[in-house]
């Protein structure tokens, strides 16, 4: 789960991680009020969406007067922001963060992520702030400093020194400041079961202090149960409506661009099914994992979500029954076609436990647009042919 910049900064403040003062608003009138309250003399008007690259997309602008705050708030609020991290359709800006201007001497980069290879949190820092860190990693990898922190010992001063010297800081106060900053940020990460925290840019002020000018946080969904305060920060308007609807029924759904709807049990087989369709010359319309306990209701819901997409020309149901019996799923499919109006060919491949019984059930059902696939390859081939109208 991701949260907005203003929410990340609320959490930072609780832990004493320095950030500029700011107020979240949802209207132009409140934006001006917020600016008055902050006092100026300069403000930054920032679009709040869950995507990076907001500045380049025109969603972050500097205002030097209250009038300018008003003009910019009016311009940014309600705009559809397209960045390298959004879809091509972009994201509607519904919230603004009005923030004090900062005294920027240098822009740096700081993040905490999970290093899957080391199996521990990794602090990453760079003198190349304000840029896309992936580009920095590719072009000048020597400019990225990485410091792994073993959670069994936590953040120690030596971790901080590795960061400070890595960033080339020679002033003792500056060294102390960055060590303290990183120590607090690590605590934010650990205490809240964060998946990642990214501050880009991290600003060094004229006084040698460090301030989080931006703040991006993502959390481990599996740990949200023990962080009700963070779970509450979830902004459903930032998430895909179909994915949310699917999740309500225990379905894991991701929309894609193709023509063949997929309904599969298991994430790996679901991806493998998409790959097979692609390999056979078709295009998958979605990823959909029905999970281990597919029944008539979830299958019907799956059909409904897949068919919302007007591009879908055929549906491939690919189930490898393990503990779940195929005959039950076959009945589920028949029930589902009664609940939902399925107007495209449905190719069904059921293998595993009780597959012969399932084949018999489907054959006897005499549903006109239902085609049986013998195995994964055969089913995918038939789905590709059906989508092409063959």
């Amino acid at each position, binding site marked *: 789960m991701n949260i907005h910049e203003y929410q990340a900064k609320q959490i930072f403040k609780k832990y004493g991680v320095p950030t500029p003062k700011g107020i979240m608003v949802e209207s132009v009138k409140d934006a001006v009020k917020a600016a008055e309250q902050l006092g100026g003399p300069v403000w930054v008007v920032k679009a709040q969406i869950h995507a990076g690259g907001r500045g380049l997309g025109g969603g972050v602008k500097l205002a030097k007067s209250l009038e300018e705050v008003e003009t910019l708030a009016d311009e940014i609020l309600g705009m559809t922001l397209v960045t390298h*991290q959004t879809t091509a359709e972009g994201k509607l800006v519904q919230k603004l963060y009005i923030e004090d201007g900062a005294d920027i001497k240098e822009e740096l980069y700081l993040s905490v992520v*999970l290093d*899957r*290879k080391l*199996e*521990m949190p990794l602090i990453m820092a760079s003198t190349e702030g304000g840029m896309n860190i*992936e580009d920095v990693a*590719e072009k000048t990898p020597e400019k990225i400093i990485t410091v792994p922190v*073993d*959670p*069994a010992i936590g953040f120690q001063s030596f971790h901080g020194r590795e960061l400070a010297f890595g960033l080339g800081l020679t002033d003792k106060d500056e060294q102390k400041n960055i060590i303290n900053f990183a120590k607090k940020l690590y605590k934010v990460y*650990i205490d809240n*079961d964060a*998946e990642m925290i990214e501050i880009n840019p991290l600003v060094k002020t004229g006084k040698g202090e460090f301030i989080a000018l931006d703040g991006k946080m993502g959390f*481990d*969904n*599996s*740990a949200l*149960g*023990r962080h009700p305060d963070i779970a509450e920060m979830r902004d459903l308007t930032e998430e895909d409506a179909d994915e949310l609807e699917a999740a309500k029924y225990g379905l*894991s759904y*991701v929309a*894609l661009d193709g023509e063949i709807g997929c309904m*599969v*049990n*298991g*994430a*790996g*087989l*679901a*991806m*493998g099914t*998409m*790959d*097979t*369709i*692609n*390999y*056979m010359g078709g295009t*998958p319309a979605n*990823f959909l*994992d029905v999970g281990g306990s597919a029944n008539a209701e979830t299958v019907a819901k799956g059909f409904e979500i897949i068919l919302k997409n007007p591009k879908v020309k055929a549906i491939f149901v690919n189930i*490898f*029954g*393990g*503990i779940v019996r195929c005959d039950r799923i076959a009945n589920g499919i028949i029930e589902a076609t009664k609940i939902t109006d399925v107007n495209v060919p449905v190719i069904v491949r059921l*293998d*595993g*436990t009780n597959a012969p019984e399932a084949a018999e059930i489907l054959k006897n059902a005499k549903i006109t647009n239902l085609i049986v696939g013998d*195995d*994964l*390859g055969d089913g*995918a081939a038939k789905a590709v042919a059906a989508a092409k109208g063959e």
Partner: protein
Amino acid sequence: MSILVNKDTKVIVQGFTGKEGSFHAEQCIAYGTNIVGGVTPNKGGQKHLDKPVFNTVREAIKATQATVSMIFVPPAFVGDAVMEAAEAGIELAVIITEGAPVKDMQMAKAHATKHGMKTIGPNCPGIITAEECKIGIMPGMIFKKGNIGLISKSGTLTYEGANQVCNEGYGITTAVGIGGDPIIGLSYNQILPMFEADSETEAIVMIGEIGGDLEIQAAKLIQKQITKPVVAFIAGQTAPKGKTMGHAGAIVSGSAGTAKEKMEALEAAGVKVVVSPAEIGKAIAEVLNKK
């Protein structure tokens, strides 16, 4: 022969009396797994599925000499259960539970390693030595005894792969579902050498997916020390970037963790890489006929 577990392996179940634990323990017993008891706090002294229940893992080991634990406790308690097993002297913990917090698994795995305990999972189907010992939730009847070792991040692709291998007239020595979480226990690089050393295993099926770099590490190891033929499939060639595909660990971050880079690395290491999982069985037949 087989790897890690066989018909003599003594197994306990943590989370024995819960709904999932009970159902799957019963299936494992029916398969022939030597389940010698289970652990559920405050139910010590009772009998469940005709086996003794203990309050702690330490008590269970003392009474049964179990060496393996199958873990079904709810996600929030997995870390605790793994650490308990490690300290009590369990040698291998098979963690089936889905949705364990990543931070808990970091701590638990580090602790297990310190105590010399191997782990498999979490969020995995478990491990099965065909027709001998099933520790997990996979449908046992697909796994006919034979000479192919199988390692997979995905449950249903394990079944798909094993089924195809058996349909081609071969069978399975041991199949290990390692799970698709960001932090997992035994992985390709620990299990591949076990299959290499196993006299019965003649070829290996390796199923991976997008995210992380375990498959890239495996390619390096295969090049250096695996002489048996390996067939690999990497799921998620058509997955979009930055989206989690079902498994928490299955995500392409920026340009890292793509199916393409993994497939290329494996191919360069001499692995027979298939583009579709529908080709796994045929590919196994092909590499074995070439030998």
